């Protein structure tokens, strides 16, 4: 038996779990408001852009998005296994790829703001 490398993804999974637990409910609520046109001046381009322009904002956005992604990717991998999808390697590759692409895209977007 050798030590597993699961900690690479488990670290972000656990951190992401905590971050999403604190933030995702309120973020989804805001998104819901936005989707329902709850208030016209929500999510104006200007305010969002301003937030994403400073370094602190960038860091927060980066942290929240990527940790959530990795959290979800890892947990969903296990969920699929629990549903009986036994091609774990394929599942893991695809899901982690998605998370990786999301991470890279986030970095690029943030850098270009």
């Amino acid at each position, binding site marked *: 038996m050798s030590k597993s490398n699961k900690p690479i993804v488990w670290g972000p999974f656990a951190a992401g*779990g905590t971050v999403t637990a604190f*933030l995702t409910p309120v973020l989804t609520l805001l998104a819901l408001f936005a989707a329902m046109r709850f208030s016209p001046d929500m999510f104006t381009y200007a305010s969002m852009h301003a937030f994403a322009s400073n370094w602190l904002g960038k860091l927060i956005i980066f942290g929240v998005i990527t940790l959530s992604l990795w959290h979800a990717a890892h947990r969903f991998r296990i969920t699929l296994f629990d549903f009986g999808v036994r091609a774990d390697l394929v599942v893991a590759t695809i899901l982690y790829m998605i998370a990786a692409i999301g991470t890279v895209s986030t970095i690029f977007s943030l850098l270009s703001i």
Partner: protein
Amino acid sequence: MSRNPYVREVPKTSWFFRQPRYMRYMAREVTSFFIGAFSLLLVVGLKRLSEGPEAFQGFLDALRGPWGVLFCLAALVAAVYHSTSWFNVTPQAMPIQRGEEFVPGKMIVGAHYAVWAVVSLIVLFMGI
């Protein structure tokens, strides 16, 4: 050989119907789908934001509509379920010992709920 142990196979795709606690577990795990999807939505939103005002407006418009509402609602429910299930087990994963006593689990969970409420309110006011 007189022995012949009988092995009961666990049904690989339907085992979780056997006990309510397994169903609760699966519900918790499935939240990851919505959290993941929502995070991807944020990735896209962010990309649109970086592409300029029109792109971002397009993104918002696309979100508006019954499907967007439905999705956000589902994500909200999933996210809340995730949060509660996550906070409720923190004392197990990270017990805090003070001298000879462990800080009661209820207090640790309570503290998490309190922080959660404060954080949510702050974000909410910032957002609105």
